[in-house]
């Protein structure tokens, strides 16, 4: 382009050269005549004209173009483009220096602005992070309940794009089945006072459920009232708090429980309750050793989304008392519920390769995220569960798998997070132990039942043996009187046959028969006393009265045998629930025994005393005491050391005392003689 500049400079001097040449020739030929002056003037005019035209042309070509370039440059500068095309200002050294300087300034500013933008972005991110980290959701709504603003954590958590939120009504985003929040918003609009709703359950239309403390307050922006909702998500906090008490609460109440169905129901309630593990549905299968099948045993969860929303709304803002729910449960509740019916009808063979059996065998939890495409899920299970994501956890007690729990979020499609799985795993350990202990309890109970039946059988056979003993004893005992009766009857017949007129002999024989018959009756009534069922005891008696009554009855016998009787009776003795006549029988038998054992001039002491919630009666004698060998058989029926005794006296005594929920023991006193001690309970 240097050539072009030289050319242009040369062009500038072309008229001068032409003018100079003309003037030179004219000088030599001496044309400076008067006639020529006009031509010369003309030539000068042409020269001036050409020169002006040249200037105009050069100006146009160079200056105007350069100004255009500068203008374009400035135009670009305004737009933030600081580059200069190399060829545009070529040769214009000063200008291009200025422009370059300007460009530098521009670039400098650009850097400054750029660095400030970074600062602002950082700042923005910083605040966003803070908002996210406190996990509070901000919503601003106008008077028509339309959302004007929602923060990022809100849209992230509820999985909504900004355009799904802004300009929509808040009731388009949430199920307000409880009406609590809607009411609160209206209240705040009217009164302007802030309201805080604690532990509020929120279920979004896209089925994301949270528990939050919601603060609703009114602000004024550009003369218009707006409502700000700040939601502090406490779902996980609630869950963790609850989890701690849940496990202890559940296991405590399950431990008290022996109804296996109720235990299973409780476990699944814990798995599904919103404040518990919060799954939508849960089902429980137990392995049956006998049939070698994994059987559906219990299921908890709604049958439809409508039911799910209803349940969710019903418990809004309330703590579910799981234990209460469990207590309300009765085995009859198993009826109804399509979901439960479905689960109960499921039986997997241990040999099958169904997913649930795999969980059982491998004792490992399976978290299935996409059941439709996961090859580990067999088609039957896929169809049965009918949901993409679910978790199956084994119930392991000791080292043995006893069953599995399957849980899913069929209705809100909430993802199953790792911490849900961990909680479920912790919980299943507890649950498995509870089931196992309940099952063993049931087994123990069944065994106890069997033992009791066997015991009853033993008691029954013992009774039969007793009857046998009674029969044998009666046989012997009544033999003597019968022999006597028969013998005398024979004698009467013989007397008559021989024609002997001996009425005195016959009368004598008959009176013997009569006496022996009476003796037979007495023996029989003794036996009857023993075998008679115990009466229903409903009276309250003073034991001292019974003792006094007995003693006065035997007063004559004491005198006859020269035995002294001494009473030491507690005056404040409480009344005892008892049968007066039966206890009198007891005292009669004991005192009679004591008399039989006591020689002449002996002493019998009877005392009553109070020992806590019991009363004690003691009957002591100064006789020879009881043979150590006999002590253990003393109260057995038909055990007797007396030649003429039936052996039922003390047996009857023990039976009556047992019927009174009391105890009787016999000991030998160190100072000699026997002591019988009766302990009877005092009703509270």
């Amino acid at each position, binding site marked *: 382009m240097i050539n072009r500049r030289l050319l242009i400079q040369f062009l500038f001097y072309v008229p001068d050269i032409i003018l100079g040449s003309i003037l030179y020739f004219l000088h030599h030929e001496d044309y400076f005549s008067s006639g020529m002056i006009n031509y010369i003037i003309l030539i000068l005019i042409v020269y001036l004209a050409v020169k002006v035209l040249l200037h105009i042309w050069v100006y146009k070509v160079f200056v105007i173009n350069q100004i255009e370039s500068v203008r374009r440059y400035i135009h670009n500068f305004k737009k933030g483009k600081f580059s200069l095309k190399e060829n545009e200002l070529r040769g214009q050294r000063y200008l291009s220096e200025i422009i370059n300087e300007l460009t530098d300034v521009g670039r400098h500013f650009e850097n400054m602005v750029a660095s400030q933008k970074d600062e602002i972005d950082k700042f923005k991110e910083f605040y966003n992070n803070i908002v996210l980290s406190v996990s509070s959701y901000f919503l601003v709504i106008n008077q028509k309940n339309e959302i004007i603003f929602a923060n990022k954590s809100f849209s992230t958590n509820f999985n909504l794009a900004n355009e799904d939120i802004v300009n929509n009504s808040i009731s388009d985003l949430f199920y307000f089945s409880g009406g609590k929040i809607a009411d609160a918003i209206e209240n705040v609009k009217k009164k302007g006072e802030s309201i805080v709703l604690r532990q509020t359950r929120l279920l979004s239309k896209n089925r994301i459920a949270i528990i939050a403390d919601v603060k609703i307050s009114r602000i004024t922006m550009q003369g218009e009232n707006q409502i700000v909702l700040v939601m502090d998500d406490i779902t996980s906090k609630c869950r963790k708090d609850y989890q701690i008490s849940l496990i202890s609460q559940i296991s405590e109440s399950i431990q008290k429980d022996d109804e296996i169905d109720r235990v299973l129901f409780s476990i699944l309630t814990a798995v599904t309750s919103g404040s518990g593990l919060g799954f939508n549905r849960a089902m429980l299968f137990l392995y049956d050793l006998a049939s070698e099948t994994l059987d559906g045993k219990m299921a908890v969860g709604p049958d439809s989304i409508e039911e799910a929303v209803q349940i969710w709304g019903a418990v809004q803002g309330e703590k579910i008392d799981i234990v209460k729910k469990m207590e309300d449960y009765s085995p009859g509740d198993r009826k109804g519920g399509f979901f439960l019916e479905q689960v109960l009808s499921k039986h997997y063979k241990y040999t099958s390769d169904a997913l649930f059996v795999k969980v059982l065998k491998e004792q490992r939890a399976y978290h299935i995220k996409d059941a439709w495409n996961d090859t580990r899920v067999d088609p039957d299970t896929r169809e049965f569960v009918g949901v993409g994501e679910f978790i199956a956890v084994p119930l392991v007690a000791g080292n043995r798998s006893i069953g599995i729990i399957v849980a899913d979020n069929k209705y809100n499609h909430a993802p199953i997070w790792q911490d849900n799985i961990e909680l479920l795993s912790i919980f299943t350990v507890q649950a498995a132990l509870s089931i196992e202990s309940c099952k063993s309890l049931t087994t123990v109970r069944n065994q106890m039942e069997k033992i009791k039946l066997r015991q009853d059988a033993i008691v029954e056979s013992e009774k039969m043996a007793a009857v046998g003993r009674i029969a044998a004893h009666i046989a012997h005992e009544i033999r003597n009187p019968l022999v006597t009766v*028969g*013998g005398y009857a024979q*004698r009467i017949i013989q007397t008559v046959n021989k024609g002997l007129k001996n009425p005195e002999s016959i009368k004598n024989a008959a009176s013997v028969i009569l*006496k022996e018959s009476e003796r037979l009756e007495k023996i029989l009534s003794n036996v009857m006393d023993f075998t008679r069922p115990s009466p229903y005891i409903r009276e309250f008696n003073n034991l001292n009265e019974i003792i006094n009554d007995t003693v006065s009855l035997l007063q004559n016998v004491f005198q006859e045998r020269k035995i002294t009787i001494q009473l030491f009776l507690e005056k404040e003795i409480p009344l005892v629930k008892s049968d007066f006549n039966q206890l009198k029988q007891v005292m009669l038998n004991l005192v009679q025994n004591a008399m039989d054992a006591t020689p002449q001039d002996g002493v019998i002491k009877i005392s009553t005393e109070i020992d806590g919630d019991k009363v004690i009666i003691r009957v002591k004698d100064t006789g020879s005491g009881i043979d150590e060998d006999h002590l253990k058989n003393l109260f057995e029926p038909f055990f007797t050391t007396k030649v*003429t005794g039936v052996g039922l006296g003390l047996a009857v005594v023990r039976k009556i005392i047992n019927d009174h929920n009391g105890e009787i023991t016999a000991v030998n006193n160190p100072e000699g003689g026997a002591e019988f001690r009766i302990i009877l309970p005092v009703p509270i």
Partner: protein
Amino acid sequence: MSRILVVEDEQHQRELYAMELEDDGYEVEQASNGKEAVEKVKNNKYDLVILDIRMPEMDGIEALGKILSRDKKIPIIIYTAYSNYKSNFMTWTADAYVTKSSNLDELKNKIKEILSSRSV
């Protein structure tokens, strides 16, 4: 005339046997328990003893031993309502074991049998 000692605690039975045996021509004495029986045997001579077992003071088993230790040859018939004493070897030393019955024929036959064998 043979002398028979009836040892029986049941008064009516004792009297019955006495009457019956006297009717049959025996001389009968009575004892109401073992102790009494041993006393009587010590002081008197009997041709036969009818001995009950269950008695107060001293029972028939003990009395049996004591009577036999004094007179080995005296015939003894145990006459009891209980059949189970048959298994007690002490009773084996008696000449007969008869279970009580209102029909005294068995007892009477046994007495006759023993006394006749002795008299030979």
